[in-house]
């Protein structure tokens, strides 16, 4: 038998992932439109008095942005893992449950109202997106529940229908926007990571870490839940409670990520998939490993996004989609071939 999964063995694997993440983060912090010299940054760190552009760029612009990217990546990948387990579908991702359309609707509504109010996430667009994303997920959950108890299919269908309906409303509202509002929402819809102020970062980080840790505690129960509700119950897991809590945590971290960065697609799909190829399906290692690798993935994508057409910047969602789309199709082809072979 292969080595059984113990806490120590898991810790070792997570440490390896963390080394990968910190390498990616430090390399990416050195890459940018503006060359930053490391000694200059260090001098700035020690001597706060002297004028030092290198230090300012590094600490005020680049590092916060990398942290935002890492948070977004970790959140999206972890909630992807959780939702795939709950829905018992390796091709599920946060956006399938209406999170994207809900967030987009929120963003457009905020832009339309031209609100100047501020919530924790800085701009009203992010705040509205966060609230709408969260609201939509729960609307989908409610509809799914009313339609078919808590069967997986009714939940998926509810997501599809809500997505379609909101898209129609979005089309309607888009026609009412002026060109300035349109540009800012479009940028946001494509997933756009920018540096955030410290308090926003801290609050987002706390919420995301709590969410991911909560999901981690549920991981073994998620393992059992992938065998179906009745099986889970016979093995001593309360399927209703676990589904509900995992769903709540996953929707929370996704909404925070959406509020931070807009819609960054495919991360919740391809990262868990790739990590599963290496680590296998056991969620106790799949979830933490996916969160860390997801963070590294988005940091790398964002670095590409802000340098590839320098001095202009691309939305990071474009890069994740360009990378993620083909990878997703590859995985889809692989998995349907596998299923086809079994039936």
């Amino acid at each position, binding site marked *: *038998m*292969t080595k*059984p*999964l*113990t*806490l120590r063995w*898991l810790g070792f694997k997570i440490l390896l992932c963390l080394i990968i993440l910190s390498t990616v983060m430090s390399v990416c912090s050195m890459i940018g439109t503006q060359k930053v010299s490391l000694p200059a940054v260090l001098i700035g760190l020690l001597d706060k008095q002297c004028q030092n552009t290198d230090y300012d760029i590094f600490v005020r612009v680049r590092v916060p942005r990398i942290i935002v990217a890492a948070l977004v990546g970790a959140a999206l990948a972890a909630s992807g893992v959780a939702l795939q387990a709950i829905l*018992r*579908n*390796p091709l599920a991702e946060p956006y399938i449950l209406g999170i994207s359309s809900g967030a987009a609707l929120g963003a457009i509504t905020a832009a339309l109202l031209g609100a100047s109010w501020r919530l924790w996430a800085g701009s009203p667009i992010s705040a509205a997106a966060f609230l709408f994303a969260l609201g939509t997920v729960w609307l989908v959950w409610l509809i799914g529940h009313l339609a078919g108890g808590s069967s997986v299919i009714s939940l998926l269908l509810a997501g599809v229908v809500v997505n379609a309906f909101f898209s129609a409303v979005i089309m309607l509202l888009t026609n009412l926007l002026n060109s300035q509002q349109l540009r800012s929402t479009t940028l946001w819809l494509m997933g756009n990571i920018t540096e955030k102020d410290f308090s926003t970062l801290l609050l987002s980080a706390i919420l995301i870490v709590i969410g991911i840790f909560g999901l981690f*505690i549920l*991981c*073994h*129960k998620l*393992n*059992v839940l*992938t*065998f179906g509700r*009745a*099986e889970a*119950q*016979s*093995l*001593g*897991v*309360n399927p209703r409670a676990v589904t509900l809590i995992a769903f709540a945590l996953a929707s929370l971290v996704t909404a925070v990520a959406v509020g931070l960065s807009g819609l960054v697609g495919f991360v919740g799909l391809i990262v868990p998939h790739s990590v*599963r190829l290496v680590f*296998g*399906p*056991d969620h*106790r290692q799949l979830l933490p490993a996916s969160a860390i690798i997801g963070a590294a993935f988005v940091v790398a994508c964002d670095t590409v996004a802000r340098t590839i057409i320098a001095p202009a910047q691309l939305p990071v969602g474009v890069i994740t989609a360009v990378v993620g789309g083909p990878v997703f199709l590859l995985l889809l082809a692989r998995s349907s071939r*596998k299923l086809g072979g*079994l039936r």
Partner: protein
Amino acid sequence: MNACIEVKDLCFAYRYGASILTNLNFRLDKGVFLSIAGPNGAGKTTLLNLLAGLIRPSSGSIIIDSKLVQSYSIRRLAAKVAFVRQEFVPVFDFTAAQVVSMGRTPYLGALAFESEADRKAITEAFEMTDTAQFADRPLAQLSGGERQQIFIARALAQQTPILFLDEPTSFLDMKHRVGIYDLLKQMQLEKQKTIVAVTHDINLCSQYSDMTLLLSAPASCCRKTAAGASYTFGPTDEILTAEQVEKVFGVETFSGKIGQRSFFLPLGKFTGERPDKTSAGENL
């Protein structure tokens, strides 16, 4: 002596449907192998789900180990009763070892990592089912029979005094059917487990089980007016007689005996010449 499973005046009906089970009563002692047999729609699986606490009875009570099923927490009940269903391929590529170790779920702590004792139970389950050679293979790569052995190993790792099986051999070939039932009998004899198996296979039921609960679908095809299914319960050789089987399943059969155990062969329209009934071991 306390019965291990006791069912009193059990009734069940789906919310808008006809009643499936009415006034069912039986007691099962510890360490007994019970088969639940009957035609489609008689409520066999429903009964098993009721016994396992997955659905609630409309009225009546089910007592497992002198406690009402509903009064157990999900976790506590999972330490009493293990459940094996028809084998299937899980969505994610879990290996056999991972699946078997899930049997330990009711005993795991907060972070859910297996302890030394858990490991021991898992190894034992592999040894008893003779499946250690599959441990590292994903379930999708095993044959149906091997997969079902793994699910039974998982139930063994769960270390419950009671084991429920819902048509465990439906998709398996003859050899694996007998193999799985041999394994169940072995668990009954060596581990003194109480086994309740729902089966379509009246011959396996006759060969392996001590007691039989034969459920029959209501005679009328209109389930709404029917009074619900009736049943017979008792030692297998008293319940499974040629007349009973023909009556309950509504099909002509050829029956005979091997030692104390009866066997039944259904006869269809095209079976050809009917065997001579009187000479066909119909000596019950």
